[in-house]
């Protein structure tokens, strides 16, 4: 049985789970409504109490929408952050917090970190399995764009070799991210510091750079960055540029260990996937370095987030249930408003099942309408939140409602509609003669 289930496509599994939640509703609906033409009366009740009904629908929609938006948002953030780290196979940094180093190197968050020296870099760069060993240099910015010194080789890897214009050929040329506020041909002066540090009292370096290329959108904070030769960053800070004086015009590796000013992180790409593991093991043994996969750090983070997500799902469902209970309570009260009509139907000979069908059908329209509207509200809210997060972090977050949210909404509708039998049964307990006289 388990094998049969596992053999089904994901979509089929999701559809079956959705069906499992919706089946009881269909069965209750069919059992109550079969053989009757109750829709005219349900429409009458919906229209007569339209403002109260609309309030209920909005209340349900907000509850469902908020829950589904939060879950979709969390997933979107997870996918966006994972995608942003896609090109960073292995990071080698000074020992410290993997999270801090990942935030600095992958998400370009300013932080104070130590430096790896020239011999360490050389050891990594000369390793037979290493294809790319790109040093990074941070700390400067231009307007809202952080400046990253690196190698042309890594820039090609980051952009899949699809830079508009060209890569730098001289020290004072730069390539900008897709969201940077500079165009090809513009010149700029980088300032010391990043973010608030760089503020209004920016301290520009005495160097002018020309933009010669633009990267395609990567969906990461690198979209706002300005990339330039790592030699340029070292030079504007008055440091050696990584090469011996006789080769001072050279850009990119190999670097000379004696003239290597230091780097906070080296991005390493091995020739083969398996080699990354060997490299991580090798560079982690050294007490001067720490090697880690950003993906692993993210996985650990997601594991924590996963627990939060589970708690969030349960909280969402409980919140929705509370809203549903409030709505059902309100429907019980509202059902007193049409108690006379129900009494009339009984006086005309309507069977109990018909009365229950009318009341349950009425509740079903409100609950299903609110749930469907809630999914729309959830998608809208998730899109707005995604846009805000993307704008603030430059991590492309694309939150879309998925099966999990749809299943959650179906669970909410299923349980609530089962509970809607309560107001339907309550109508039967109302005294007919009393209500006809009232």
């Amino acid at each position, binding site marked *: 049985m388990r094998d049969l289930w596992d053999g089904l496509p994901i979509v089929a599994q999701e559809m079956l789970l959705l069906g499992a939640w919706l089946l009881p509703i269909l069965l209750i609906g069919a059992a109550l409504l079969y053989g*009757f033409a109750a829709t*005219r009366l349900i429409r009458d009740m919906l229209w007569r109490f339209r403002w109260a009904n609309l309030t209920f629908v909005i209340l349900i929609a907000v509850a469902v929408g908020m829950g589904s938006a939060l879950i979709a948002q969390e997933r979107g953030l997870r996918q966006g952050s994972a995608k942003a780290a896609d090109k960073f196979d292995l990071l080698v940094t000074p020992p410290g917090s993997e999270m801090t180093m990942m935030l600095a190197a992958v998400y370009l968050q300013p932080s104070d970190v130590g430096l790896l020296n020239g011999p360490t870099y050389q050891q990594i760069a000369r390793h037979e399995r290493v294809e790319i060993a790109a040093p990074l240099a941070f700390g400067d910015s231009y307007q809202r764009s952080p400046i990253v010194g690196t190698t042309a080789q890594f820039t090609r890897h980051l952009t899949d070799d699809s830079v508009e214009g060209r890569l730098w050929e001289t020290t004072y040329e730069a390539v900008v991210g897709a969201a940077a506020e500079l165009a090809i041909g513009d010149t700029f002066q980088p300032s010391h510091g990043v973010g608030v540090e760089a503020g209004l009292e920016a301290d520009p370096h005495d160097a002018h750079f020309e933009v010669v290329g633009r990267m395609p959108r990567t969906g990461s904070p690198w979209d706002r960055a300005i990339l330039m030769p790592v030699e340029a960053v070292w030079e504007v800070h008055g440091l050696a540029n990584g090469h011996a004086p006789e080769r001072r015009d050279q850009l990119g590796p190999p670097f000379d260990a004696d003239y290597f000013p230091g780097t906070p992180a080296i991005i390493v790409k091995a020739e083969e996937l398996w080699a990354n593991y060997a490299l991580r093991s090798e560079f982690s043994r050294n007490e001067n370095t720490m090697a880690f996969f950003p993906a692993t750090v993210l996985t650990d983070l997601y594991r924590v987030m996963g627990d939060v997500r589970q708690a969030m799902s349960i909280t969402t469902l409980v919140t929705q249930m509370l809203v549903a209970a409030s709505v059902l309570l309100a429907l019980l009260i509202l059902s007193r408003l049409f108690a006379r009509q129900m009494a*009339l139907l009984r006086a*005309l000979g309507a069977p109990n099942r018909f009365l229950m069908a009318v009341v349950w059908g009425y509740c079903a329209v409100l609950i299903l309408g609110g749930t469907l509207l809630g999914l729309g509200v959830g998608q809208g809210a998730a899109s707005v939140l995604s846009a805000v997060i993307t704008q603030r972090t430059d991590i492309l977050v694309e939150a879309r409602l998925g099966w999990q949210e749809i299943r959650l909404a179906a669970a909410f509708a299923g349980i609530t509609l089962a509970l809607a039998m309560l107001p339907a049964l309550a109508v039967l307990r109302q005294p007919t003669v009393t209500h006809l006289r009232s």
Partner: protein
Amino acid sequence: MIFQDFLLFEELDALTNAGLSALFRPRSERAGIRARAAEHLQRLGIQDGTRKVASFSGGERQRVAVARALAANPDILLADEPTASLHRSAADALSQDLVALARDAGTSLIVVSHDERLLACMDEVLTIADGRPADPADADDTDADKRTINHA
């Protein structure tokens, strides 16, 4: 049953209100109920059955209620103060039509009313005073011969 304050579904049209029992009766009976509802509405002077009853006057509403009661083809029709909410001319017209329709349909009509003119249309009248059947001798109505007391 016919009620003093009509008890109609305001957002439904006259024909649906009159054929209300078709909504819960077996499918085989629905067409007959709707046909009778339409016929009674016509006879009661409601020409446009597609209008919502919310737009009807009191007299028209009660006519819809009468059509609803008769459309179900009942053996006995109970009417509780059917003319009490109507002005005089509407009440008189309804009284005549109600009795005529009940008679044509072969339905026994039992009316509870204070309306003397409606009572005048009845075959038999039972007077209730202080919750008890009253002695016909106490009645001061000139048409006392119609006032009989039936004791079970």
